[in-house]
């Protein structure tokens, strides 16, 4: 099918093309909801059965890093929206700027996630790989706060007393943690790739009030990835936190 300007040959008008692209992205996002949904369901069921072990697992996550990541992602959704707005209002120079900001914030998020994953590796919290929920509190590192560690050890011991399989159940928690945040990170990486493609087009002045569909639909995708994180954060990081 030939392309004349921005209009692909299978469409009659640019309006029809934009309607199709937007509807297509919305439907794709619905499929993503169902895709993540299976894991959210598994998580919910297992958390109901193994609340104590899941609480211990959750408490090992760094809430500061998680909060920073949440703020970073929300800000990136804002800059993304600004990018769409700039395209729609003809502020051509601002479009690549906001896209680059969005990309940078996304990279910050991924960087922090990498740090978190590295921590899990050091603390023997990778499922299937010498997983041991007691490891950190019984082998505190010099940088760890001894009071924190003592408290954690107490909680871990109490969990093991009431649930002898707490290690297995905590491993279940971490399996879901890695599966869910890993899948989310994968989606962010894809999103970053899409934004790089947009930046290229934006630098070439491609997006105007007349034609800005790619920015809009990548924006939709990015907002969705943000929303998934906004569900993941409280579910994974914030349960059983009363210290």
């Amino acid at each position, binding site marked *: *099918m030939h392309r004349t300007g921005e209009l692909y040959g299978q469409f009659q008008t640019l309006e*029809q093309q934009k309607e199709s692209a937007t509807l*297509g992205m919305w439907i794709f996002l619905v499929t993503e909801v*169902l895709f993540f949904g299976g894991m959210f369901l598994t998580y919910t069921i297992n958390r109901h059965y193994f609340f104590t072990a899941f609480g211990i697992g959750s408490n090992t996550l760094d809430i500061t890093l998680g909060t920073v990541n949440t703020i970073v992602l929300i800000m990136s959704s804002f800059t993304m929206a600004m990018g769409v707005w700039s395209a729609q209002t003809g502020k051509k120079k601002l479009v690549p700027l906001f896209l680059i900001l969005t990309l940078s914030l996304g990279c910050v998020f991924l960087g922090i996630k990498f740090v978190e994953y590295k921590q899990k590796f050091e603390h023997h919290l990778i499922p299937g790989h010498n997983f041991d929920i007691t490891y950190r509190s019984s082998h505190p590192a010099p940088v760890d706060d001894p009071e924190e560690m003592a408290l954690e050890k107490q909680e871990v011991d109490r969990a093991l007393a009431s649930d002898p399989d707490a290690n297995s159940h905590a491993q*279940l928690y971490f*399996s879901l943690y890695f599966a869910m945040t890993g899948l989310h990170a994968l989606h962010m990486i894809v999103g970053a790739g899409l934004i790089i493609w947009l930046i290229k087009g934006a630098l070439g002045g491609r997006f105007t009030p007349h034609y800005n569909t790619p920015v809009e639909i990548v924006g939709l995708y990015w907002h969705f990835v943000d929303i998934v994180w906004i569900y993941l954060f409280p579910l994974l990081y914030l349960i059983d936190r009363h210290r």
Partner: protein
Amino acid sequence: MNNTSPTPPYEPPRDHYLISAGGHIRSWLLTTDHKRIALLYLISVTVFFFIGGVFATMIRIHLLTPGGVLVTPETYNKLFTMHGVAMIFFFLIPSIPAVLGNFLIPMMIGAKDLAFPKINLLSWYIYLIGGSFVLYSFSTGGLDTGWTFYTPLSSIYSNSAVTPAVLGIFINGFSSILTGLNFIVTIHTMRAPGMTWFRLPLFVWSHYATSLIMILGTPVVAITLLLAGLERMFHLGFFNPAMGGDPILFQHLFWFYSHPAVYIMVLPAMGVVSEIIPTFARKPIFGYTFIAASSIAIAVIGFLVWAHHMFVTGESTYAALAFSFLSYLVAIPSAIKVFNWTATLYKGSISWDAPMLYALGFIGLFTIGGITGLFLACLGLDIHIHDTYFVIAHFHYIMVGGAVMGYVGGLHYWWPKITGRLYSEALSTFAAIVLFLGFNLTFFPQFILGYLGMPRRYSSYPPEFQVLNVLSTAGASILALGYLLPMAYLSWSMRYGKVAGPNPWPATGLEWKTDSPPPTENFHVTPVVDWEPYDYRNRPDLGLAAGAPLAPAHGDD
């Protein structure tokens, strides 16, 4: 197929989609023309049909004797598993949507192509990649978990090549999702002027409903199989009771997709039948709105019945009651279709061409299959017939007697449009009858086997079940002939068949208003629609008897 129009002999088009872009392999492998992609799918699904068919042949030969005559139990378990995986994921689910749907939907709505032609091609490549993983699994140790992959057998105990298979099916799921997405957007945004929702052919309605299921259900099985694969690879514990997991959770997640999946397989075939019957009765379909609505109803209610596969797992009695009740509800829209198709035949002008024979064969076999679903939905009966040959007979009546017959019938119906050629009337009539008879002989005895108590997935059985098994195998040999014949004469017709003309039957859809084979852009001029579907009375261009008498309103019929 005799066109009584007094026009001069038809000149086949010089330029059409099969030649315009060139014959070079690159022009096929990099095509974005929905018609070429449909043919690419036609070849691939036929390959998988063949593979699944070879396994089926081996199964039926093996079961000629109680002890099993052909293979060891380990191999037998691999045969039925691989038969199921190849047929369900790589033949039945793509077949009608990816071949006929891809080819026809843009034409039926008056568009030049689907909304996202490149994504359409991507779907095909994803299908091939998924298929390669599965073929790799088949050839390196095979797969012996059953196509249902129940845990913990599949995640822990099986020693076969489960991981590549599960990854392959996962990948293939995205092919389905993207096809469904493409269809939904296309039907919403790319209809020609005047083509309102209620002027759409019922084939389009049924594919719309199918696409809804594809996009909503497939992601769930994707994540389920992914979790099962991860569990197997990294010894995680989602479904392993020794680690706090639950095998029943797997079943819920699995069936949440796999039940609606059967409607993905049968709704398109119903769409085909809804096109064939009006054409070969030369009158509008009876109850258009009800048939369209029933497609949507099947899609919606179909998502609410999954745990009828789990009545004897120890699930709560209340849940079982709810799922049984809903399973009866989902039968009703299918019954509505059967009644409406039958009513369409009344006072029609019925031709006995092969597509009509396949459509009527569908109605007969699908009705039997659907009716036996009523037995299975019945809680008291299901305790006895669950996981027996009764279930196998039931789903083969629907999927083979229904979906495959619909697919083959659809190929026969639109073959002139796709290839510009006609095929032998005599051979196609013969093949349709052979298929119908062979099918019944193969699968009807299995209902009896099931009620007598022969469980499914058995590589050997008590001697008292032998007679019925032998009958079934005999039928299978006839059934095989019913498939091989069309493969032969349809292929032959591509080169030597009579030239078809744009509208040989003739039929009323938009796809018949353009050349056979069609030009790459489908229509030289975008059509503007101002007629109702299946309207034979107001179409002088079809060259049929004009002004045929109307039945009096509400009285005589």
